[in-house]
């Protein structure tokens, strides 16, 4: 089906259903219930799932397949966002201009950075990409381009947004002043009440979801293609690859640019959801976050990065919303002394301490579960003696890609 084998097609269907039904699936708890805080089915969070999912899928084509660890992918994300906002400023708020522009700009930038960075490998490659991204950040954050051209390009610390004085050549009189797709406002939403439940369907989210599905489909095709096999060959043994008559350079550059295009798309979508952007989107911690998502989910697997992106964005929302009162509520069943100790231990990890949780979880995953969530799922599957336990070596080719 669609050029996929049975197993991949099933996986693709699952992702389609999850993406399209997310507003329902992610709101399993009634609005007034005690567990409503664990709902994730509101637009901003679902958008983040989809956008970071796209970002991580793209990163995974580079890191998961070739093993080249880029620490500078946020540069493409930021470039995509800037390009999108510039399209708003020049033409109008229709994302039909913004999103292609963000993909193209990120693509061009990734050709440039990739061409230079890929002349080195291993740790040098990581540091080169990091240096490039930091340079892009400095350029964006102090608007160096603007100083050359005499007009703000990235608008420095303030960030880039649309002003009334902007040309907006294609903006009709009284036209929509929010991102839209052929006048379909991306902020439009419909709420449906169903018993105690409430589900929100937003146009913007569905735009992201469709791009997520397309991105995921493309990534399956790439994983299963001869090109994908060549990328895994790069990771496995570059020496043998060269002596087999294959030029690893263009393969690497192609992988790098593809992941840059994905990041550009994600950046464009970010600007489509919220039509402004700033330099901090390019800071190296943002690049680190992309790396964390892929690893946490399971680098080199198809679904892993999507899961990783979802897990991190969800944890971020839940953990940052926790506070001592909620913790006390959780541990109320304990004797008072123990309750206080438990809360005191967890206190640094919640609320503003979300990054501590993230760092700790990440370390634990790298140490004990290098395959991430996907490997964890497989181990649990095997533990319960499902099909996993009887898996024969014939599965060896397919399992890493699940």
């Amino acid at each position, binding site marked *: 089906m669609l050029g996929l084998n049975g197993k991949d097609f099933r996986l693709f269907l699952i992702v389609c259903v999850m993406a399209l039904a997310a507003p329902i699936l992610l709101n399993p708890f009634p609005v007034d219930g005690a567990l409503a805080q664990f709902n994730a089915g509101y637009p901003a969070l679902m958008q983040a799932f989809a956008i970071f999912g796209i970002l991580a899928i793209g990163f995974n084509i580079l890191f998961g397949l070739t093993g080249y660890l880029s620490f500078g992918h946020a540069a493409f994300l930021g470039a995509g966002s800037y390009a999108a906002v510039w399209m708003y400023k020049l033409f109008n708020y229709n994302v039909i201009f913004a999103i292609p522009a963000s993909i193209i700009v990120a693509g061009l930038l990734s050709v440039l950075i990739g061409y230079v960075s890929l002349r080195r490998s291993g740790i040098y490659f990581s540091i080169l990409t990091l240096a490039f991204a930091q340079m892009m950040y400095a350029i964006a954050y102090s608007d160096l381009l603007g100083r050359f051209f005499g007009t703000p390009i990235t608008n420095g610390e303030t960030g880039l947004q649309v002003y009334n004085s902007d040309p907006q050549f294609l903006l009709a009189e009284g036209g929509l002043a929010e991102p839209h797709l052929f006048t379909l406002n991306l902020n439009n939403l419909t709420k449906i009440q169903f018993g105690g439940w409430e589900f929100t369907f937003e146009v913007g989210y569905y735009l992201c979801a469709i791009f997520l599905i397309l991105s995921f489909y493309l990534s399956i095709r790439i994983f299963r293609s001869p*090109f*994908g096999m060549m990328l895994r060959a790069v990771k496995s043994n570059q020496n043998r690859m060269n*002596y087999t008559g294959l030029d690893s350079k263009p393969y690497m550059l192609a992988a790098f640019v593809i992941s840059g295009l994905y990041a550009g798309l994600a950046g464009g979508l970010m600007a489509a959801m919220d039509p402004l952007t700033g330099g901090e989107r390019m800071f190296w911690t943002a690049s680190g976050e992309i790396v964390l998502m892929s690893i946490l989910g399971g680098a080199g697997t198809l679904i892993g990065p999507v899961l990783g992106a979802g897990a991190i964005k969800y944890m971020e929302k839940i953990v940052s919303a926790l506070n001592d009162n909620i913790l006390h509520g959780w541990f109320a069943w304990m004797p008072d002394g123990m309750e206080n100790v438990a809360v005191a231990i967890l206190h640094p990890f919640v609320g503003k301490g979300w990054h501590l949780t993230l760092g700790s979880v990440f370390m634990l995953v790298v140490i004990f579960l290098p395959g991430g969530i996907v490997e964890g799922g497989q181990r649990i599957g095997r533990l319960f003696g499902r099909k996993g336990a009887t898996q024969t070596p014939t599965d060896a080719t397919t399992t890493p890609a699940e």
Partner: protein
Amino acid sequence: MGILEVKGVNKRFGGLQALGDVNLSVEEGTVHAIIGPNGAGKSTLLNVLVGKLIPDSGSVMFDGQSVLGRKPFEINQMGISRVFQTPEIFADLTVMENIMIPCFAKRDGAFRMHAIESVGHEKGIIEQAEQMLADVNMLEKHEMVASSLSRGDKRRLEMAMCLVQDPKLLLLDEPTAGMARADTENTINLLKEIRTQRGITMAIIEHDMNVVFSLAERITVLAQGTPLVEDVPEKIKGHPKVREAYLGEAQV
């Protein structure tokens, strides 16, 4: 005129003359061995042949074209495949994938952006790879991850990866180095099989006399970076100069 012609190649490393005026001709359809004591310049010569080193002077022609200054992948695309001392394979990939990659390289060249096609739909390549695996008796292992193969099978796989490209010249760099006796025998037999079935031209850089004399049709003896003699094995065995320079008194 041989398929591989090395003419007047010199290479110095600082004060050391690694190769001095090397002339060598490998005839099409023969197995040509290059032997010599440690430090005779065998590895340097090999590195020149595969494009890793550029000699200070001289020429290396393969099939009428110069190989000098070309990258390893270009030299492979010209028709030279190489077997390494320790098998270089794609350890994380399956046996089948290991064989398919050289098939793609042969068919599509050094780079092709075939990112949307599915590997599973490449019937021609799959058949070709399966045929090759059957030829080296590894078909039943095609789904195994290459790193889990035995040492002997890894060597066999690497040979198969080279052979499936149907090279004009197969370069072997001490293919039995560090092997146990039984493995060495197996490798010799495998190479003999390849020789009789496919008639592939081979150049072997080797240390082990056993291997050399049971395979080679012509032998070049290298000493201190210069070819000492070149002849058929029978003549080399008894050659006084060779005894003196390389074999010593005890070994033959």
